[in-house]
């Protein structure tokens, strides 16, 4: 019977807690590095202009607010953890620090793309005037976000797992 690797899981749990803690305590101004590229892409896709307002986030004249809870921090953490757990080494690097750095960069990029997809779809969804009685606006928004996130996580997992299979 395979023993549980306490060291690995303990470290991962610690990483999870620290990252989640950092994202939870950070204010919107400190998360601008994550939001700015997302908003840039959203502006291109939707032709909606956003303005940065300190302590609030990016707002548009249509009252769309991209703030802390929209930053994609949750997805970034989960994406990072997935890479760590899968021990994914995209560039076959031998230096540990470089390996970790490359994973951070890729997770960052994927987060930007995924979150942009989510926000753009949500804006489109919000623009439909059709009333759905069994689901309110907030729930439909969260549902859409969840579908996109899960789809992306499954896709990433499939891609990196397939690469494993090919390698072995």
């Amino acid at each position, binding site marked *: 019977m395979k023993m549980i690797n306490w060291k690995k899981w303990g470290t991962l749990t610690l990483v999870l807690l620290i990252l989640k*803690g950092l994202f939870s305590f950070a204010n919107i101004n400190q998360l601008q590095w994550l939001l700015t590229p997302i908003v840039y892409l959203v502006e291109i896709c939707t032709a909606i202009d956003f303005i940065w307002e300190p302590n609030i986030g990016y707002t548009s004249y249509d*009252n769309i607010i991209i703030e802390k809870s929209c930053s994609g921090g949750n997805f970034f953490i989960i994406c990072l953890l997935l890479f760590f757990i899968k021990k994914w080494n995209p560039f076959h690097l031998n230096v540990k620090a470089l390996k970790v750095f490359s994973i951070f960069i890729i997770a960052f990029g994927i987060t930007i793309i995924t979150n942009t997809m989510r926000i753009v779809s949500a804006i489109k969804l919000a623009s439909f005037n059709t009333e759905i009685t069994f689901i309110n606006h907030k729930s439909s928004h969260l549902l859409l976000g969840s579908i996109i996130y899960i789809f992306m996580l499954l896709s990433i997992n499939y891609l990196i797992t397939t690469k494993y299979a090919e390698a072995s």
Partner: protein
Amino acid sequence: MQKLHKYRTLFYGITLIIPQLLLGFIFNQVITDDISSEWDTLKNIWSLLLILSFIIMGLDLKQKIENWILPLVIIAGYLIGLFVFFSNNNLINTLSNVVTGRIDYKIIPLYLTIPGILYALIDLIIKKFNPTTHTSNLRNLGYAAITPIATYVVVVVILPSIKKMFFNDLTYSNVEFIRTIIVSIAATLFLFFAIRYIYGYFKKRKTKANNPVLVLTFGLILPFVGLAFNTNIQIFGNFNYPLIYGIVFLNATGLYLLSSPNHKIKLLGFILSSIGTPYVLYFFLVFIPYIPLALILLIALGLGLLMLTPIILFFIQLKALAISFNELKTIYGKNILILISFLAAIIIPTTIVIICQDHKNTISEIIDKTYHYDSDNLIYNDFNISKVSYIVKQMTVRNRHSSFLDSHQRMPLISIYYDWHVFNNLKLSNSKIKDFKKLFLGEEKRINNWQRRVAPTKLKDSLTYNHTTTYITEGDYYETQVDFEITNLEDKGLREFVTEFNLPEDVFITKYYLDIEDRREYGILAEKKAANWIYNQITNQRKDPGILQYISDKRLSLKIFPFKAHETRTSGFTIYHKNSVQLTLNKLTINIPVKARNQNVIEFSKNAFYISGLAKQKLPTSTLKAHYYFLVDNTRLGEDFRTNFKKDYDLFSKSNITNDILYVDADISWNDKPKTKASGFNYIKAVNQIQQLHRNKSEIPVIIVYANTANRFYADKNELYFQEAFPLKNLIEAHDWNKKPTNKFELVTLTIKGVDYHLPKNNIAQFINTQSIDKLKFNSNSNPFYSALQLRLFEKIGASNPKLKRDHWLKSLQQSFSLNILSKNTTYISLETEDQKKRLLKRQKEILNNKNSHNTPSEEVRMSEPYFWLLLIVLLLILWKPKRITKTTFK
């Protein structure tokens, strides 16, 4: 051995390094640049201690130093650190979040440092001072008992005596300093001996944590005494819930049953104490920061023992459960026991989550039923007033800053979770909380003079006017510019001109101006709250503003500030009207006579009609039946009114006039009396429901109100609104009713597409909308008068149905702005400087975006991410699945 060292380092990492990093992070968030320098000493100490800890931990891991050095350095270093922090306690007040936030920054360093010190202390005892004999262990008990007494003698007797005898010049602060040092050292010594004794006791007795005497003392008696003691003083929080006493008893019973030789009873004990474990863990976490304080209270009546009980009980509980687990696993199996204990342990947390969810639903329901209810919905909501009361209380306390010495105590830690779960970033304004208190808890109103709505004349004025009227042929209406000259007759300056006047509903104001110095400053149309906010700010700064706005359906207020002694200022506005207008400002009557032209009924928008006062006179009269509504006070204040109603109703029922009885408390029950409530009287909703019901009915509602005035809920309306809303004088207080029911009303009738619409027989203009109000939309119209009529219709419909008001609020604002016509949601304000205008627009934007005011409906769309726990579950599922696939692939 090396592995053990690694675990030891890891535990130091968990108990000390991570909490310290978190501490640094939290304080880094709240220490702003302007106060940063004041915190330099503490920052340096924090960094120094962290670096020192890292170095010593590294040396310890490599076994380059004796194993007792690491704990000793940590205990000494962090005690000094805490000491310096609390010596500079006043620095906490420099943090801006202290005033507004709900986090107690004084207690955070304790929470995040004591676990490390405690672990170091236990480590030190195990590594260096391991009690070996029974006698040496008893000595520990003796030292632990003597330490508080000795401290007491030193602090209370010896120190002041020395001061008096030898150091007369010793200042009070120096004594305080020495006293604090002594108490800190004594606290550590006490803990050292106490932990050493407890450790030695368990070690010698070999796993006797489930000793019945020990269990009953620390599991039942002391917690009960502690909780009872805390009931009155509430220093540590509010634990006055019968459920907590029940859990204490349940847990103690469980621990007691663990000592039974019968394995079935032992299993029951295991389940019960597993249920109680979250409670023990909770109190352990709550009391960790109070460990040093426990020593001081040990001196005072031994209360410190009560404070240490949660800590001791935590260790007893863990040990007792571990012993029983080992015994029971041979009978029931390891996995079953883990499953049972897990299920049992989540009972209390799950209950808390369910309660929070229930309260969250309730809060959204009460917000909805107070501000956004649908008047067409006549179903009675039987609110649980005690639950609402609890939530409102939590919300009130949350809006204040609470510290651990605050008298408004809540349950520590759980209250933070409660706020997060129930309120979820929803910080309601005090005015809304006041509304809830009034509506749901029946808080009685205070008598304020301003509620009588007498126009205050702050300035003794001389007012003159002139006007110029133009007929706009294309639009078939008149445009009249009215100019005023207002003179301050007094010898004193800085006076405010205030007037209120009535305006018919088919007269619209535009182009308001105020002459400031030599220039004409046209008013900006702004959202009402934003405009009033800036007006109040400016009057404080004694600059020039003028403000014109609706204060009820037909009444307006005009204020201009300031006036110097004997100064004359000019102001004015333009009105759109179809008929002659008469306005009365203070004592001045303004007459604008015009020739009445087209006096037919006008369809100003699709299915929306305007009937002027003169047009009404041409309509045929008709007689309509009355329908009586009795609003009966169903609150605790309404007993006398209910009795009177019964008497009157017995007489009334003989008249056979159709009627309904509305029992009114926080909600409205139609013809079915619910249990009397200790809530407010929802007057506005009752009236709105009746108005909504009679929208297209061929009956006239006559409302007789049997209710106390003290707890009436008007929302944002006032008595004047109700008087204006019932022009036939068909809203009557019970004591004003002559008890002679009127069965018929004479009205005029307008027939549109075969449907009769009945209107009061007077010369007041009226609006009729013949389509479903849900489909009502603004249609762009080149005729400004027709556009203004649309705006007015929109507002009138919204007024009696808050659900629609919320939906259309933003649109009506936008229309008012684009048409440049004053509406009931907007305000004309003349501002002197560009800076004032900028501030107003910024504030307005905030209100429109619903960022600073919860009094305005939300129209914003937030792009929130899916929940973190959901993603975590997805991740776990992903990790679980490929493993199976891989296995099958490689077979």
